[in-house]
C-alpha cells in the first residue's frame, strides 16, 4: 500500500506540472479564427489577440511597393486591408482572386498586420460537375509550416 501511495503522489506531481506547462503553452500560442464580418463586433481584449482571418484576395489590390505587400481580403461583401510584414517570399499561389489565410494582429485603425500568409488556388478539380474531387489542391504557405501529404 505504501508503494501505491507514493506512486499516486508522484503521479499527481507529474500531472500538475504538465497541466501548468500546457496552460503556459496554450496562452502563448492560442490563435483565434475570425471571419472578416466578425472583426467589426470585437471589443476589449478580443481585439488584441493573435488571430487568423481568411478570405479572397481582391483582384488588383496587391501592392508590392514600399518594402511590404499590401492587399485587400474580401469575404461576403466585407473587406479588410492587410499588410504582410513577414520576411519570407509569398507563396506562388498568392495572386488575384486566390483564397488566403492570414495570421497576425489587428491594429487600432482597423488595419491587419499579417506575419504569415497562406494561399490556395481556386481548386481546379471543382471545375467539372459530376467529377469526384480527390485531394484538394494543397495550399502553400509563406513559411511552409504546414505540409501537404496524401493524408493518412
Amino acid at each position: 500500500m505504501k508503494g501505491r501511495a507514493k506512486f499516486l503522489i508522484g503521479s499527481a506531481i507529474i500531472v500538475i506540472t504538465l497541466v501548468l506547462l500546457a496552460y503556459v503553452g496554450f496562452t502563448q500560442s492560442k490563435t483565434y479564427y475570425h471571419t472578416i464580418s466578425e472583426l467589426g463586433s470585437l471589443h476589449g481584449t478580443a481585439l488584441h489577440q493573435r488571430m487568423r482571418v481568411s478570405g479572397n484576395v481582391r483582384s488588383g489590390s496587391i501592392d508590392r511597393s514600399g518594402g511590404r505587400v499590401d492587399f485587400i481580403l474580401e469575404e461576403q461583401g466585407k473587406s479588410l486591408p492587410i499588410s504582410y510584414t513577414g520576411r519570407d517570399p509569398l507563396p506562388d499561389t498568392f495572386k488575384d482572386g486566390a483564397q488566403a489565410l492570414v495570421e497576425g494582429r489587428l491594429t487600432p485603425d482597423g488595419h491587419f498586420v499579417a506575419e504569415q500568409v497562406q494561399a490556395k488556388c481556386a481548386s481546379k478539380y471543382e471545375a467539372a460537375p459530376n467529377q469526384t474531387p480527390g485531394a484538394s489542391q494543397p495550399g502553400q504557405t509563406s513559411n511552409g509550416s504546414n505540409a501537404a501529404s496524401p493524408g493518412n
Partner: protein
Amino acid sequence: MDIFGSFALILALLAAVYGFAAGLAGILTRRTLLTKSALNAGMAVFALVTLAVGSLEYFFFTDNFSMAYVAAHSNRALPAFYKFAALWAGQEGSLLFWSWLLSIYVFATLLVNRNKHPELMPYAGVVMAGVQVFFLILNNFVASPFNVMGGPDASGTLRLASLSDGHGLNPLLQYPEMVIHPPMLYLGYTGFTIPFAFALAALLGRYPGEKWIHITRRWTMIAWCFQSIGILLGAHWAYAVLGWGGYWAWDPVENASLLPWITGTAFLHSVMMQEKRGMMKVWNVWLVFTTFMLCILGTLLTRSGVISSVHAFAQSSIGNWFVGFLGLVFLVCFWAYWMNRDYLRSDNQLDSLVSRESSFLFNNLVLLAACFAVLWGTLFPVISEWVVGSKISVGPPFFNKVNVPIALFLLFLTGVGPLLAWRKTSYDALRRNFAVPVIIAVISGIIAFIFGFREIYSLICLILSVFVTLTIAAEFYRGARVIASRDSVNILAAVGELTMRNTRRYGGYIIHFGMVLVFIGIAGQAFNKDIQMEMSAGETLAIGPYSILCQNFDRVANNNYESERATLEVFRSGRSEMMLYPERRFFLASQVTETMVAVRSSPLRDLYVVYAGRSPESGKPVIHAYLNPLVKWIWFGGIVVVLGTGLALLPNRRAAIVLRPVAEKSWGDAVANEASAIGAIARRSESHD
C-alpha cells in the same frame, strides 16, 4: 474494365459480410464448419480486393482518363513509378488501398492462426470481418474509386466523357519517399486492427490464460514498427521536400499519426506487467482498444475537414461515417468490457516505488499524458467552438511545452526501468547498476556546459542520452561476459549469442538505443541557424563555418516541369567544398510551383539551402540557408529502431529442448506446444523474457 473492379469490390464486401455473419452464427451455434467457412471468406476478401486494386492500377498505367480518379491524379507524362503511387494520392484510392492492406493483414493472420486457438479465432475473425465490412462499404458506396467521368445529357441518358490528359499527380507527392511513406503509415494504421481483434476476441470469449497477450503483442510490434517507419519517413519527406527547414510542425495530420503510436508504445510496455505479474489487465485491454480507435480518429480528422489542415483531404461528408463507426466501436468495446470485467481482475498490487512495476506505470502515465495533450491540442479548435463559440487553435509552443519534458522523462525511464527489479529494488542493487553511468553522464554534462552548451533541455537530453547508452551497454556486457566465460567464446560472439537467446529483451534495448539517437538528433534543433538573403550572381552569404557563393541562375525544362535553378558553390575556410543546386519547379500538368531543396548532410550537421523565390520588391532571387545540426541522427536512429524491432520479433534461440509446463493454457495450445516440442527442433518461437 471499370465494371470488373467494381464487381470485385462488391464481391469483397459480400465475402466480408458473410465472414461476419457466418462467424457470428458459428460462435452462437458452436458449429466449427460454419466458423471455418467464415474464416475462409476472410481470406477470399484479400483476393477480391487485390483484383480491385489491380484493376485501378491498370487504369493508371493505360492512361484511362475516363475514370474520374485516374483523371484527377495522373497524366500521360507522369513517370511510371508515380503512376503506381497515384493509387493512394486521393480520398477514394487511398481508402481502397487501406482496405487492401487490411485484407493482407487479415489474410496473414488467418493463414498463421486459423488452425490454432480454437477458442480465440472465431471471435477474432468476426471482429476483423466487421472492420472490413465498414471499409468496404465506404469503398463501394461512399467513395468509389471506379466512378467514370460524364453525366446525364439533356435527354437524361448517361454520356461518358474522357479527358485527353489527366490533371496530374500533386507535385509534392512526386518524390521517391512519397511512394513508400503512405504505405508504411497505412500498414501501421491498419495493422493495429489485428491486436484490436485479438483483444476484443479474448474478452468476448473469456479466453483462459494469457496466450492472446502474446499474439496481440506480436502484431502490435509489427504495426508499431510500420507506424514508426511511416512517421519518420513523413518527417523526412517534410524536411527534404517542403523546404521550411524542419521536419515536424505539429500539424493535425502529423499528430493523428503520432497518437496511436504513443498508445501502442504504452501497450508494448505495460503488457509486460500483465505477462509477469498479472497486473493492469483492464488498462491493457483499453490501451489496445484506444489505439485502434485513435487510428480511426486519425482517418476521421484527415478526411472530414473537421480540422483545418492543408494536409487534409477535400471536405466531404465521409467524416460522418467515421464518427458513426468510432461510436459503434466504442460501444462494442465498452459493452465487451462491462460484461467481462471480472475476467480482468488483477492478480497483484504495486509493492514499491522503486520497482520495475512502478517504472512501467510512470512510463504509461506520461505516455498517456502526451497522447492526451496532443489530442487535446489537435482537437482544440473543435472543442473551443463547441464550448465558447469561437474557434481557437494552439500552435507548436503548446505541444513543445508539454511534450519536451515528457520526452525527457521517458528517456530517463528508458535508462532506469529495465534495470530495476520486479517488486522491489534494493539500495545496493541501485548503486551497483547506476553509479558508474550516472557519474559519467554528469561529467559529460559538465564538460558540455563548459564548452558552451547552455540550452537547458538539450543539456538534460545529452546527460540522459549518455546515461541510457551506458546502462544499455552495461546490460549487454554483463550478460555477454557470463556466456563468454562459460562457453569460452570471445565477447562479441557472446553478445550475439546473448541477443539471440532473448531477442525480445535485447531487441528492446536496441530499440531504446535507436530512440536515444533520435532524441540526440531532435536536441540538435536547439542550435539551428538560418539566414535569408537576396542574391545575384557573384554575391556571398555566410552561415556557420560555410560561405555560399552564388554563381548563376539558369532554367531547365522537360515535359513534366520547368525549373528555375541556382548554382551555388559552398566554401569552408577558404576551400571549395561542394556545389548545391536548389530549384523551383513549375509542374505543367498541375500548374503548381514547388521548391526542390538542396541538402548536404553529414553526421554533424546539415547544410540545407532553399531557392525561396523572387523578392516581392526587387525581383532578385532569394536564397534561404539553414544549418541544422545532428538531423541525420534522427533518420539513423529510426533505422536502429526498426532493426531492433525486427530482432525482437525473431524467435529465441534455445540451447536445448525444454518441455514447459502447459498448465493454465488451453487444450488447443497444449497440443500445439507438444507438437512443436516433438518436432524436435531446438528452437521455440515463444519468447518470454
